[in-house]
Each structure stands twice: as C-alpha cells, then as structure tokens.
C-alpha cells in the first residue's frame, strides 16, 4: 500500500518553489514541453509527470493492448507526486472549479484545509489500495473556492469536510448515470411532444432503471415545471460522483481535483481558451495537464475493477450474511441501496456526453472508447433477462434527504454545495463498504452500525426498523455488509 502524507512537504518545498519561480522569471515553461523530451530526464529527475507512451494514437476504440498501455499511464499519473517542475502549485488561483484568480498569493501554498492538500491522487485514494477510499486523515475540505478561499480553519462555515470515496467500479457508475440521464431526458422529450400534440399539460413520471425521480409537468407551449423532480438536478443530468452527487463525470471530477488538491491545471479548463492566460495559476508553468493526461486518468479510474462479494469460508458468517441480506431488503434499505442496476453497454466513451464547457466534450476531441468488456473483471458481471449487465453497486444514483429533526448527524454541514441543500446527499454505493471504513460523508463514524443509526430523513423508516431489530438480526446485516469487499488486483 502506498501512502503519502502531505505533512512531508513543508517549508522546504515552498522554498524550492520560490527559487524555481525566480529562476523562471525570464519566461514560463511548459509542463507539456517537459514531457516531450523524456530522454532529457535523468534517473534522478525531480519531475513526476510521466510520459505517455508514444507511437500510438489513443483514439477510437482501443484494443486490449493499447488500452492496457493507456491504463498504465493513467495509473502512473494517479500515483505521481506532482512537483513544481510539473506545474504543481497554484499561487495565483483558487481551488474553485470555475477558474478564479486569487487577489494575492498565499503565504504557504500547502494547507490541509484550503489546499494544496495532497501530492498525488493516491495520497488520499489508497484504502485498501490505490484507487481506494481514504482514512479520516485524508479528509478534504470542500469549499466553492470563490470567497474565503484560503480558509485556515475547519470551522464548517467555510467548508464541508468530506471523507475520500473509493473509485472502484467508477466507470460502471458513470455509465449507469449516463444511461439514466438519457432516459430522463427522453421522458421529458416525450412529455413535451405529447403536451404539444394534445394541447394539454402532461404530468410525466421520471424513472430510469426502476429508480423514481419524481415527475415533471410539460406544457403545450414547450415549458416544463420541474418542481416535483426529485433526487436529480433540474437539468435531469444524473451526477453520480462525490458524496453530494454533484459531479457529472470522472473527467469533470479529475479536472477539478487536479487543480484543487495539486495545483495542476488542465488545459481544457484553465488554458487560454477560457481564461485568456496560458499560466492562469501564475506558477510559471503552462499547459500543466494535457487533454491526453486527463484522458489517461479518466481511463484508469473508469477501468478500476468493481468491488466484489466476499465468500466467507466460515459457514456461520455465510449464514449470517444470507440472513442479513434478506433483512437488509426487508427493512427497506434496498429501496435506496439497490443491489443491482442494469447497464446496457460497457463501452466507456471519453469525452462523455453530458459534460459542459470547461470539461472536454464530445465534439471537442476525437472520441475514445474504452471497452470495459476487455478487462478481466468484466467477465464476472452477470446479465439480466434483457441481456443488460447487473451492476451490484447497492445504490440508486439518486440524492435523498438524509437527516431529520431527531436524527441529524448526517445533516451536519452548514454549506450547501452546487445548489444541493446541506442535508441532501447521494446514496452511498455500498459495494466495497467492508474495505473502506470509516463511514459517513465526513468519515467520522468508525462502524457500519454507527452510520446506519445515523440515517434520518427519507431513510428514517429503515433506520427505525433497523433499530427495532434484535442484536442478532442487526449483526447479521453487518455480516452481510462485511461481504461487500474489494479484492486486490
């Protein structure tokens, strides 16, 4: 297991960075330039940005060999401890997802609160191994980054403290979200056509993969009222990533995180096209992360094997888990933690269909298809009667109110995020839950029992039912959840 502690940096790094900035005062360097001449890299080079294997075009439908090389590059990037020579640092830019200038450079660039707060993606995503979740010590402090962006406190009025999610099966999650978004938009379109045809309002139920997202009202004049839409944004884009469910794609999240955590600014959002500035973060480096590097990171995350079901050798555990799984359904946990959602295709197109400007879009680059079916783990996926893959995520990719007056601990944030209210969160996918403690969006619950007890709001009935079970029954549910494991690669 690779674990990088951000505390290892400190003043030396800042001093080195300052020196480099002085050295570079006669011009700016391109991080991309650096990777164009790998032969100039000495074995002791302090660059961390790996070089993409040349000679191949990573576009179109990648064959197994090309995909493998691309994934290897993605993993190297994910594990790279970016240095100032790569363009790490953002002295004149905040962590905001919309490129935002600081008024002045911070005294110290690294900070466990406002960031930079990590050297590598794997610094936090490492439980139980690279790509995984994070310990409480790897929590991130999420702020919009527009005002008070240099907060140096954990006071919740400045940021929401979040535990690091694991990324196993992330490609499947995004594919599910894409199909669900497609379904919802199709329903909206159908309702509008019907309203126009009949000249009367049409109330359209919104559902996809048997997950209900409320309804909308379509009017004959082409307007729609979305007040009764539930658990998804008004634009009907299912955003499956982050605890809050506000990130559309791995690509969007990757671009955000590279800037936030490392000060590595992707050209596709922070480049001169959108900012008018080749070195937006003012660190002396341009084109720090190319489109292809982001793509490789996306590919690697998308290709991570989904969590698995652990088969205990202890028959008592097996029996308890069987009982627990039944109880899990019986008390209604599976109404949100859906054991399976059906997926039509394992072709992961990058760029994806749902991103907006600032994240590479379909018509901005040649599309690449990562056929997840080429990966060994894909053979383990089962199919339903329609031939769709059964994705055992134990989630519904829908947001819910998760706290109430009496059970409020999961509603402990002060700040809404990206239009989503403070007490509303995406259903956590439970696959891999056995290997990714701690729990809760703050990672401040050490046991599964604790986090189940903390379910309020729309999960209150199930939580109360859980509470009403006897000890053995509750234990059996834990036994079941402890089979939702993550296998080593």
């Amino acid at each position, binding site marked *: 297991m690779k674990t990088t502690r951000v505390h290892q940096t400190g003043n030396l790094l800042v001093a080195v960075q300052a020196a480099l900035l002085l050295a570079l005062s006669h011009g*700016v360097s391109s991080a*991309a330039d650096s990777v*164009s001449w790998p032969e100039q890299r000495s074995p002791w080079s302090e660059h961390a940005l790996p070089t*993409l*294997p*040349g000679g*191949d*075009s*990573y576009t179109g439908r990648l064959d197994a060999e090309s995909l493998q090389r691309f994934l290897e590059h993605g993993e190297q990037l994910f594990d790279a401890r970016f240095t100032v020579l790569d363009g790490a640092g953002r002295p004149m830019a905040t962590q*905001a997802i*919309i*490129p*935002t200038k600081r008024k002045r450079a911070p005294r110290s660039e690294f900070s466990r609160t406002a960031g930079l707060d990590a050297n590598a993606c794997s610094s936090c995503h490492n439980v139980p191994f690279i790509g995984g979740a994070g310990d409480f010590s790897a929590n991130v402090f999420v702020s*919009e980054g*527009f*005002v008070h962006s240099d907060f140096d406190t954990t006071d919740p009025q400045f940021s929401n403290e979040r535990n690091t999610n694991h990324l196993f099966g992330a490609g499947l999650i995004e594919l599910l979200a894409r199909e669900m978004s497609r379904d919802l938009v199709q329903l909206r*379109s159908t309702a*509008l*056509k019907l309203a*126009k045809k009949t000249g009367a309002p049409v109330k359209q139920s919104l559902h996809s993969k048997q997950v209900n997202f409320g309804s909308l009202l379509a009017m004959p*004049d*082409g*307007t*729609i009222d979305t*007040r009764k839409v539930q658990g998804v*944004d*008004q*634009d009907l*884009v299912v955003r499956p990533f982050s605890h809050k469910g506000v990130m*559309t794609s791995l690509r969007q999240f990757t671009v955000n995180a590279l800037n936030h955590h490392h000060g590595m600014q992707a*050209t*596709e959002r922070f*480049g*001169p*096209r*959108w*900012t*008018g500035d*080749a*070195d937006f973060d003012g660190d002396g480096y341009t*084109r720090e992360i*190319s*489109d*292809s*590097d982001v*793509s490789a990171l996306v*590919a690697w995350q998308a290709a991570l094997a989904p969590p698995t079901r652990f088969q205990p050798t202890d028959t008592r555990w097996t029996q308890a888990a069987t009982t627990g799984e039944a109880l899990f359904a019986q008390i209604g946990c599976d109404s949100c933690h859906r054991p399976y959602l059906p997926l039509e295709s394992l072709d992961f197109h990058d*760029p994806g269909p749902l991103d*907006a*400007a*600032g994240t*590479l*879009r379909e*018509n*901005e*680059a*040649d599309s*690449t298809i990562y056929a997840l079916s080429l990966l060994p783990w894909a053979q383990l996926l089962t199919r339903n009667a329609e031939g769709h893959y059964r994705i055992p995520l134990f989630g519904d990719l829908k947001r819910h109110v998760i706290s109430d007056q009496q059970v409020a601990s999961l509603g402990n944030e002060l700040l809404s995020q*990206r*239009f989503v209210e403070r007490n509303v969160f995406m259903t956590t996918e439970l696959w891999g839950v056995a290997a990714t403690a701690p729990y809760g969006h703050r990672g401040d619950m050490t046991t599964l029992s604790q986090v189940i007890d903390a379910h309020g709001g729309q999960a209150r009935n199930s939580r109360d039912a859980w509470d009403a079970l006897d000890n053995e029954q509750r234990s059996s549910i834990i036994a079941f959840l402890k089979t939702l494991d993550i296998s080593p690669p």
Partner: protein
Amino acid sequence: MNASGTMRSCSSAIGKCGAALLLILLSAGAVANASSRSTSSTGTGTGTGTGTGTGTGTGTGTESDANNPDNQYSGDIPAYLEQAAQAGIEHRYAGPWEYFVGGGVSSFDCNGDRLPELYFAGGNEPAALFINNSKLAGELAFSASKAETLNIKGVLGSYPIDINNDGFLDLVVLRVGSNQIFQGGEDCSFKPANASWGFDGGNAWTTAFSATFEAGHHFPTLAFGNYVDRTAPGSPWGTCHDNELHRPSGSISASKTPGSNSNSNSNSNSNSNSNSNSNSNSNSNKDDIQHPDYSNKQNLSPGYCALSMLFTDWNKSGTDALRITNDRHYYRDGEEQLWRLNSGSYPRLYGRADGWDSLVIWGMGIAETDLNADGYPEYALTSMGDTKLQVLDLQQAIDENRPAYEDMAWSRQATAHRPYTGDDIKPSTGWHAQFEDVNNDARLDLFIAKGNVENMQDFASFDPDNLLMGGADGVFSEQGDIAGIALDTRGRGANVIDLNADGLLDIVVVNRDTNVSVFRHTGMQHQDTTRAGGNWLKLELQQAGANRHAVGARLSIKTGNVVQSRRVQVGGGHSSGMAGFIHVGLGVAERATVRVQWPDGQWSAPYKLFANRHVILKRDQDHALQWFADETR
C-alpha cells in the same frame, strides 16, 4: 447546442484570413496596436494547442484558432455562415436620400413559438415580415408572412413592444412620413392602432425610437427621434427636427402599476427577497385601462438630427433618462443629448452645469452595456471614424449626480475607426451597435454594422461589419474577418440574436441596396470544423398587469465571483429593436444564480439555474420554468 461539426466557409480560407490579419498587425494603425497590447496581456503559450499528439483528444487541443498562429486572441471565434438566401430571405433596403439612414430590422416572436420573426425595413420599397420556421439548432428557415399589413413603404426601422399589455407584442414602425403603431394579435396578426390609441404619427423623418414605462403609468412612454426637417428653410443644413415624447394620458397610482419603473430611489441594490404582490391589483385594474391614449405629445426641443435614442438608467436611480445620439452632419451647434424625465413634467436637458460635456460626433447608434456589472451602464456610440465607448465618471456621478463620461474606446481597443481588412484605410461608418456574448465565454463582445452612407469618398468604401471579441483583460480584439462576416456590403440596422434556439447568437444585418445578411452561427472555429463554445443561458421575464415583458428590469447573473448584468430595454441600436430571450454567456460555469430587479425596483429571490437552457422567470414565482423548442417542427 450546435455540435454539428459543420465546416464553415471561412475555414477553408483561413490562411487568407490569417494573412489579412497579419497585414493589419503589421500596419501602424490602432488596430495593430490593439493586437500587440492584447499580446502582452494574454501572456505566452497561446500557441496552437496541439498537445502531445498522442492521447485522447490530443490531436485537437483546447486553445483557440489553432490554424492561425498569428491571431493573438485566445478565445473562441465563431464561425458564421451567411445564409440569407438559403434561409428564404430576399429583402433589401433601398431608396433615395431619406433612406441613406435607417434600414432597421426588428426581431420578436409573434406566433407563440418563441422563435424570433424578423421584420425588415424596406425604404421606398415595402417592408416585410418573415416568419421563423427554423429547426431547433438546425438550418435557418424563414418564409414571408402572408399577412401584408406590415408591408408598407417608407419604413426606416421598427421596435417591438407590448404597448397595451395584452401579452402580444406590438410594433412601432418608424417612417419617412407618418409613423405607425401596429397592434399585435394572434399568429402574427397586426392592425394599425394610431387612431384607436390616439397616436399622431406626424409627418417627420423619424430615425430613432425608445420606450420606457414611467412610474404611475400603465402604458409605456414613447420617444421618437427625428432627423432633418425637410420643409424648413435651408434644409437640410442646420434644420434638424424636434424629437417627440408621447406619454400616455392619465395615470394611476404606482401601487397599481407594478410593472412600471419606480421613481423611488431603488438604487440600493436591496437584498430584499420580497416581491411585490401588487400584480393582482393590476389584473383587476386591467378592464379599466384597455387602451392607451397618446394624444398628448411633447416636443423635445432642440432636436439635433437623432439617429438613435435610448431610455437609460444612467445613474442607477430607478428612473430612466433619454439618451440621444445625433448626426453632426446636419446640425449646427448641436451635440449629444441626455434628457432628464421628471415625473410627468416637461423633460429637461442635462447641460454643462449638470456635468454633461459636449460631444460632437456623427452619432449613428447606441449600444448600452454594463461591462463591470456595477449598475452604471457604459455606452458604445457609433459614428463616422471612431466609435466611442463611454464610461461614467463614478465620483462625479455618485457625489454630485453628474453625467460626466470619459471615453475608453482607445484603451479597450474598441474604436473600430477604419476597416480591419482590405486596402481601404479611410474612416469607417458605423451604424447599429450591440453588445452580446457571441462565443459564450462570459465576456461581452461588440458587434458594429458598418457601411458607407452612399458613395462618400472620404470614407471607406469597403467597410466590413465589426466583431470585437471581449478579452479576459477587458480589451477587445477584432475578429470579424476570421468569423466570416467581413462582407462587401453597406450595413445599417442589425440584430444579434439566436434564431434557432441553439444558444448561439446569429447576426442579421440590413444592407443598403443589397440583400440582407443573415449570418448563422455554426459553432466555434476549431481546425477545419467547429466545436461547442461556452455555456449559456437564455432568460425570458414575465410579469402580470402592465409591462408584461418587464421593460426596464435588470438581471444579475452570478457565476463564481463573476457577476454579469443585463437590462431589458426598448430602443437604441440603429432603427432596430428586439424582444424575447435575453442571452448570457457563462463560460465554463455550468450553474448560475440569477436575480431580477423588476422595473419597480423590487429584487427577486435568487434563481438557481443550470446552464445551456432557456428559462422563463415569472414575477412572484420562486421557481423557474424551462422552455424547450419544438423538436418535431
């Protein structure tokens, strides 16, 4: 959003475009200086953006105009295709001396499908209304209206506005001779309303118009700008006609006219979330006030041969003043004008003692914007030679309420004073001007229609329209040639408007003596094709009772730390009005928080909106409606 990857016509000639631009860069003129300044401000690394050339998307890059390394503008450049004939529009603006000016187009929806129709002035030939049949995000398609009511001669321009508050846009038509107001009805039906609304169209040569809803009035106040008085002795020199103000007769209490502009001090940017509940009052009052009465007319004297006018809240007071740009070619001892509209009483000109400095230009068009969203508008004034870009002296304005302006066209490189391409370096002649965001990068751009008056030898003959792209540093960069709009036509009025509901702003230009230009926005140029631009929003405001379309309302659009401002206005440009969705580019923001300051000064609660959609905001409703164009048409 258009993502069709359509090849633009100019892309194949981009080498030529680039060469042309290089010539300009090498010239000693202001445009070259503009480019070099832009270079220093945008920094290095604005190269071709080809990336490493190996990975996904690496062959495409994400930086602007990869085919033209000479172009220092790093943002997206639209790819416009001129498609008037293809879209079914054959129409020209022609006629003798009286029609050397004018030549407007107005855009508005008159058949309820929320796509804008186009009404073109024809000069001494008939004006014409074209119905918009365009497909969603598809090719533009128009057909001439079968109703011929509007097909009258002598038309210089027009402005849409719902005068009688019935929900249908009416049309004010400016003419050589009697102006005409047409009452709008179902399915693009119009009927003359001068008689029924007590409006005397006069017999002047009318070249400008603006309207506002004054406090206490259920109907709008109409201002008409007149040009040369052809009957005066010595005409045309020094014989400018007075302008006119038509205020609706009678008034009702302000509490019953929530739609009208407040005359109270509403410039505090109140954070109040309370909306007025008085719309219902105006509904109940509606039967009492069926028709406006414009029988009372006030002359605004002196007139200095107006070519554009605009009611504007220059000092954020909540009460509009009337700004008029005048043509020095015919006036004597005249200047630009700003009329103070004291509630109900005779307007008074701002003078030297008030801080209004003399500005003498060949004023042709006014475009208002608020570049820094401080609530104090800036104005682009087109002319022969330099375009002015005026910014208010805030210290004088705030401390002493003085309308003192400074020009920043030079520092912003927006003078557009001579053609940016071709060999003709004589001064330009600017007409219609309009600030919009044509690449959706959240920075306003400036379009200016250009064209020689009529064989004026001292001015450029080949005088292409301008597309000044707003940069991150606030400096504008001319990209008209590369964008594909640098045609050899003589432009007059224009509209920058989305004709096919794809969030991309098309450009319609009325040309003298030749067919109109309809430039379809096909996307942002990228290598040999196009790609999507920034995110966008289009917003429609509605309120009940008077002033249904919220003329005078202000919109505040917040994305991150950036706040943009828009205002709903009727007037300005050059003889060209528009009504409908208000377009805002959002850049890379996929969400925006929008607040509306309704015309009476009340602020709405914030609306949380997602990008890339049409949104309808109704007063007293805390939720927004989304609108989708008919996919089946």
